[in-house]
């Protein structure tokens, strides 16, 4: 890190801010050890702007002939996944801001009317590759097919959902294209000065947020966390273009073979993609009261979550557990019913947009992160909510 010692007040804010223990004070000034990984937490913490990250604001390469905002059209059971619709909404905004087209690159087999459907949800162009070998996702052929399409059409931005598929495919593709990839973003925007993509993401178990740019290499790639943005809405009147891409044996080579898929039937719950989650904790008192949680979730179009205590009581299977050792979720609405708000639970849900806490103890820690607090008996409050919805 670069230090402007004349500005440094010796306040040690940087020492405290460093997550890596890499800053110590020597003779009243901070010294950065080898443990420093240039994360910049100290830059932000410094009240006198005395620290700078080296080499920032690097070469402002003239915007290359790369144009277009692309989304990887992940599919599941013949449908685009929900995060694709969320990316279409985000991509539409970015396209409007930069005056570029919004494209979806769609690979699979016998995709039927899906291209038209994606156009109705906001795509200007759909790049379509169909082949039986692409019916089931595999990293290698998908990487090759996407790399070929990108070399031909040179998009400037390429976005994926941060699903298990997106987080497996995107890094392999980024390494092949020798470009940068930002993981698990919760916000995407355009830098007004440089026109680059501003990619904001949590790191450090959610304790730090970082904004990342990829100033030189193209395309600028990011995966985006599902459930953070609102999905695009359908407009059947929209028109667009479907471009069929060629594929061939060299692109379809794969050293992996999918043998089968085993549904976890108790685990059909998809907490990560849900926009509404109603979670129950030990405060519900018994398994029967969980039916109220289910009912409220159904009324709100959401799914059911649980604290570890509720899982340990056997009221719900582990797949529903939210928290440090369960799922990390960020729905638009999270309702915690009879959950105390232990740090391990908060770690999994504090990124939610609106948090509602229902608890009879007004001092329960869950209220510290709640947007709306409801003090009272959880069963009564749940019944009132269900009645009035």
């Amino acid at each position: 890190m670069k230090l402007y010692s004349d500005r440094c007040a010796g306040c040690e804010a940087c020492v405290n801010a460093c997550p890596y223990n890499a800053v110590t004070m020597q003779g009243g000034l901070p010294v950065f050890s080898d443990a420093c990984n240039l994360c910049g937490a100290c830059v932000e913490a410094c009240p006198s702007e005395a620290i700078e990250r080296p080499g920032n604001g690097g070469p402002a390469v003239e915007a290359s002939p790369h144009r277009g905002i692309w989304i990887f059209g992940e599919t599941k059971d013949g449908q685009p996944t929900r995060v694709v619709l969320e990316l279409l909404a985000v991509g539409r905004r970015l396209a409007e801001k930069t005056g570029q087209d919004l494209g979806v690159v769609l690979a699979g087999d016998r995709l039927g009317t899906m291209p038209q459907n994606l156009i109705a949800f906001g795509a200007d162009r759909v790049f379509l590759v169909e082949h039986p070998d692409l019916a089931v996702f595999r990293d290698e052929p998908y990487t090759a097919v996407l790399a070929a399409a990108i070399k031909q059409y040179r998009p400037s931005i390429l976005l994926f959902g941060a699903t298990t598929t997106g987080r497996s495919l995107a890094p392999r593709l980024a390494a092949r294209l020798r470009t940068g990839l930002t993981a698990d973003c919760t916000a995407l925007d355009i830098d007004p000065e440089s026109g680059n993509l501003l990619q904001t993401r949590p790191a450090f178990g959610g304790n730090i947020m970082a904004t990342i740019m990829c100033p030189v290499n193209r395309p600028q790639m990011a995966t985006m966390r599902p459930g953070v943005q609102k999905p695009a809405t359908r407009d059947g009147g929209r028109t667009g273009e479907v471009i069929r891409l060629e594929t061939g044996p060299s692109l379809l080579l794969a050293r992996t073979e999918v043998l089968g898929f085993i549904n976890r039937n108790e685990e059909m719950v998809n907490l990560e993609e849900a926009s509404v989650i109603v979670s129950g904790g030990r405060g519900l008192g018994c398994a029967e009261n969980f039916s109220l949680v289910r009912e409220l979730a159904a009324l709100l179009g959401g799914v059911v979550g649980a604290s570890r205590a509720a899982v340990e009581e056997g009221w719900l299977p582990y797949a529903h557990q939210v928290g440090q050792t369960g799922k990390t979720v960020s729905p638009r609405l999270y309702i915690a019913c009879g959950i105390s708000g232990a740090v391990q639970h908060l770690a999994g849900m504090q990124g939610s947009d609106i948090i509602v806490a229902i608890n009879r103890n007004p001092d329960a820690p869950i209220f510290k992160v709640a947007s709306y607090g409801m003090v009272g008996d959880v069963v009564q409050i749940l019944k009132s909510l269900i009645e009035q919805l």
Partner: protein
Amino acid sequence: MNIVACIKQVPDTSEVKIDRETNTLIREGVPSIINPFDLNAIEEGLLLKERFGGSVTVISMGPPQVESALREALSLGVDRVVLLCDRAFAGSDTLATSCTLAAAIREIGFDLILCGKQAIDGDTAQVGPEIAEWLDVPHLTYISAVEEVSDRSITVSRLLEGGYERVRASLPALLTVVKELNEPRLPGYRASLRAKTEPVTTWGAAGLNLDPANIGMKGSPTKVTRSFVPELGRQGQFLAGSPEEQAAALIAALRSARIVHGSAKES
């Protein structure tokens, strides 16, 4: 079977607390640990070695203090540890990190590479698949079980959103692993004694045949332009009144946030 496990030394993020006054991380007393998923990678390497013979090498890129993480790996019984340490590696993003690790893995030689699902500090989950691409071997992510191993292939289960996918990959290959895979062992007595004295091989950029343009800050296309501690506390409000009144107030609030109505109709 020659196995290379990649481990990262990380601060224990579950111990990190926020100072609400200054909105900064409280780092005091936060211990450095081996990234939890990487312990599962080491364990699987040791289990496979026990069944099929061969060797387990553990590598890590980082500052000199990473040596303690590598000594911990030795105490678990791995054969050899390699530290990749050079000022030239500082500021690496995942592309530069994976390039550097790939060069070292090529040097060591391998049939199977094991990585954690993701590091709990950087949290990107990108280094594994990127290493596989640099080395031109197949990769499989989120491995929760190893079912079969032959000379030429490995059959595994991947833990995905709605279930398990069974997949076979030809060897050599790279796997990233989740906690479900196994229960990491505790240090052994004899291995712990050895871990105290065993030399830790250290490699810098020079010996690895690396293009300076691909490593460290120069080889990193992503630039962190800002990082900040998010506001954790919310400006929340308690809803007043009887359960019925509170429920009415909440529904009104959710309606104006367009959650009630909108989402109930969405597919």
